[in-house]
Structures are given as C-alpha cells and as structure tokens.
C-alpha cells in the first residue's frame, strides 16, 4: 500500500506544455467588461455577471461581478477535478520542474494509447524512461481483428511508481493518442510512502451524486451528476511502523493524495482524501488497519 502526497502545480513547476492557454483573453485590472465576457485569471476562466469597468479587485475574489467557470485547458489536469480533463489533438506533452524529490507520478482519467515519462537529471542526463500502454490491443493482430474484434478495455490510469530520487531533475510526460484526441483528467506526483501491505477484504465502490426522485405516481425524474470512487483498504502494518504512519496521515490530512492499493489494479488507485484511518494492534508484530478513502470527482 503506497500513498503519494500530492504537490500543488505552479507556474514555476509547469515549465512547459504544448497546450496553449488562449481560450479567452487575460483579465486586466480596470478593464471594461460586458455580461458574458470570459477572461482568464490565474489559470482559471471567469465569466462577467454584470457590465463593469475600472474595477481592480480580481475575479477570484469579486464574486459579485465574476462567476468561476473552470480551469483553463492547460491547467485542468492539475486542478484536483478528475472528471474535467485537459485535451489536445494527437499528444499532450508537458514538463515539470518540481525542484524537490519526486519519485512517483500518476495520471488519472486518461484517454490515450500510451503515456511516456522521462526524468532528466541536469548532471546525469536521462535517468528514467518508461512507457505505459493503455489501450487493450492484445487481441489485435491483423486487419480483420482491428476492425471487428471486441473493443478492449482500455486502461485509464497510468502509474509510474519506481522513478529514481533526483531533486533537481525535470520530468517530461507525453500522452499519445495517435490520430485521436488525448485527454488527461488529473496528474498527481510527489514522494511516495509505503505504509504496509494491502490484504484481501479491501473493498471499492462508486459514490453517485445524481438525484433520482420518484413522485407519488411512480414517475422518475433523474438529475445526472458526477460520481467518485471510494475504497476501504485493509492493510497489514508492522507495529514498529505504526507511529510513523500515524504521523504521516496527520500530515496529509486534507491534502489531495494518491492511494495505491495495488499498482496493477486500476480499481485500487484512488485520488482523493482519506476520511478514516484505524489500526488494531492484533498481533505482537503486526496491526490490522482500515483506511477509508473518498475519491475526488
């Protein structure tokens, strides 16, 4: 069981991206705006609610005049909302310059053929280069199967959990969709911590925010909304690690993190917050623990 405490992405960290940030003009203090105008401020898109000019308060604080719409396409994969994705035709390529140790990076809600991560150290050069294939192409071997074989279950999570620790390294990620449109819901990266061993008894699920109302005549009204994953991990933790793990969970309280129950099982990878951690010292050397994680939408 590994947990990756997320790092907030800033302009300094995101040193390069092939996704332009030009959906709308940039907000300018004291500018003139009419209802419906959209402007970009601090990588977020806002829409004017009333005509105004000469105002210096920024859109993120001026809720009377501005309505938040979403993050820009470039930053949507760093905004902690998995269901809203960054997209680009062909490939999405970006470079992170964290200036701290990062040994793990996980991409979620990905639509692509493959994801490649390259870590480059300023002194050593390329120290890591790995590609994860997402598309279920195992059965495609000729033209006939290409056109008629059942559509494979494409993975949507690409996890890179074995990167070397190089505090000065840059990390370049390439999401390749071939001739299609590449999409990435969220990118989470940081230093992983192994806290124990995931055991059988772990459960997963989906929490739906949709509303289904049934009136007195049996008619159903459905308001479709988003949903999120949740997981309840059963973990064995060595007793000598308990104090350290407890301090770690205190540290990541309310910090979006990636919880990896098993890197080969996409369903056990959840990006969100933990809501409950409980350890029962069951044996002389091992404790039985339960960790409940609520995923982000």
């Amino acid at each position, binding site marked *: 069981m590994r947990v990756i405490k997320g790092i907030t992405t800033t302009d300094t960290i995101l040193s390069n991206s092939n996704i332009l940030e030009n959906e709308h003009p940039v907000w300018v203090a004291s500018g003139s705006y009419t209802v419906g105008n959209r402007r970009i401020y601090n990588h977020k898109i806002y829409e004017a609610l009333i005509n105004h000019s000469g105002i210096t308060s920024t859109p993120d604080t001026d809720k009377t005049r501005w309505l938040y719409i979403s993050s820009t396409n470039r930053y949507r994969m760093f905004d902690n909302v998995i269901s809203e994705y960054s997209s680009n035709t062909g490939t999405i390529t970006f470079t992170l310059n964290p200036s701290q140790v990062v040994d793990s990076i996980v991409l979620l809600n990905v639509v*692509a*053929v493959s994801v490649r991560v390259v870590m480059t150290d300023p002194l050593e050069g390329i120290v890591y280069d790995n590609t994860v294939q*997402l598309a279920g192409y195992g059965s495609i071997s000729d*033209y006939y199967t*290409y056109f008629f074989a059942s559509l494979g279950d494409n993975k949507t999570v690409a996890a890179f959990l074995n990167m070397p620790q190089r505090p000065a390294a840059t990390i370049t990620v390439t999401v390749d969709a*071939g*001739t299609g449109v*590449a999409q990435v819901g969220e990118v989470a990266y940081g230093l992983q911590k192994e806290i124990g061993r995931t055991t059988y008894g772990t459960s997963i699920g989906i929490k739906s925010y949709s509303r289904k109302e049934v009136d007195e005549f049996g008619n159903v009204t459905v308001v479709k909304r988003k949903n999120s994953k949740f997981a309840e991990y059963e973990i064995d933790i060595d007793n000598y690690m308990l104090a350290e793990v407890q301090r770690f969970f205190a540290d990541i309280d309310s910090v979006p993190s990636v919880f990896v129950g098993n890197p080969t099982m996409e369903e056990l990878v959840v990006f969100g917050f933990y809501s409950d951690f409980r350890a029962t010292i069951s044996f002389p050397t091992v404790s039985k623990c339960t960790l409940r994680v609520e995923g982000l939408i």
Partner: protein
Amino acid sequence: MPYPIVTQLADVPARATNTANFSNEATKFLDSLIPYRDDYNAFLAYINTNQINHLNFGTLVDVNPNRPTTVLSDVVGGTGLTYILSVEGFYNKLRNASFEYALIGNWFDAVRSSQGVLPYVDPACPIIPLLPEPHTRFQAKAAFNTSAVNFTNAAKASLSGLSNAVTYLNTACFGNDDYGAVTDATITVTLDCGLLTESVTA
C-alpha cells in the same frame, strides 16, 4: 471534359480514442472504400489516357507552374504494417490524400487546356496503377485480410505513382530545355520538325 470527382473517404475509426463510436465509424469507413476506389480509378484512367503534350512549346503564362504539393508520397502502408497506430495513420493519410485530388485535377486540366494532348502514349510518363477491390465488411476473415493487404499495397504504389506522374508533368512542361551552347554567331540551318501527324514509335 473536366477531371472525374473523387468521393472523399469517411472519418477514420479510432479504436483507442473513440471507443464509443468505433463500430459505427468502422462500418462507414469500410463502406466508403468502395465508391472511393471506383472514383479514384476513374480519376487515374483520366490522367493515364490524357497524355499531356509537353512538346508544345506554347506559353504557359496562365498556368500555375507550381504543381500541387501532395502527401501522396508520404503514405505508409503495405505489408509489415504494425497495427493500431500505423493502421489508423495510414488510413488518415489516405483520407487526407483524397482532399488533394481536386487540386491535382484542376492543375492537370489547366495544363491540358494549354498544352493539348499527345496522340500516343508518352513512354516517359509514369502510368499510374489502379486500385483493386477493397476489403469489405461482408467478407470472411481470411478473404478480408487478403483484400486489405492487397488494397494497402496497391494504394501505396498507386499514390506514389500519382505523385511521380504529377512531378514528371511538372518537369516536362515547365522545366527548361537546354539544347546545348550556341557556338555559331549565325544560324545557317533552319530546322523544320514537320507536322507531327504520324504516330511515333519510341
């Protein structure tokens, strides 16, 4: 008579990135190969049979000397094609090429209108091979694969041939013909090439 119009191919199905619509798009794409092949062969027959008279030294001032830039020679295909991305890449190049036939046809007709046609087959002009029957969704697996490989091989050869033919015509019609240095100050011999009414055997 202007060049025959070529029906454009349907959208290329994307197995990895458009899973929800792949089956529908695959059906439409396969079905569009049939009219595309018939139109394309008619287009090639028109090019092949109208041999431009590059020996007509008339003026070409109204014709754009820049032949259409094509992606034809860049088509990837044939045996050894790796699947998924290479297949999608090939079909996308084929589809993109289908947008260029109108440019080539217009340029060809402009040159033809200016130069006229030869009464014989120009031995130096590449003859462009036609396309075979394409693979269809009504074929069984073995026949489908055989047709697909044959069609891909032929498409690559045909599109390369079309590119070569256009290049040849461009060079033959617009290239400078250098008959060597004129060493005599006075031209004493008049060359009468006569009427080219008889067929010439190369």
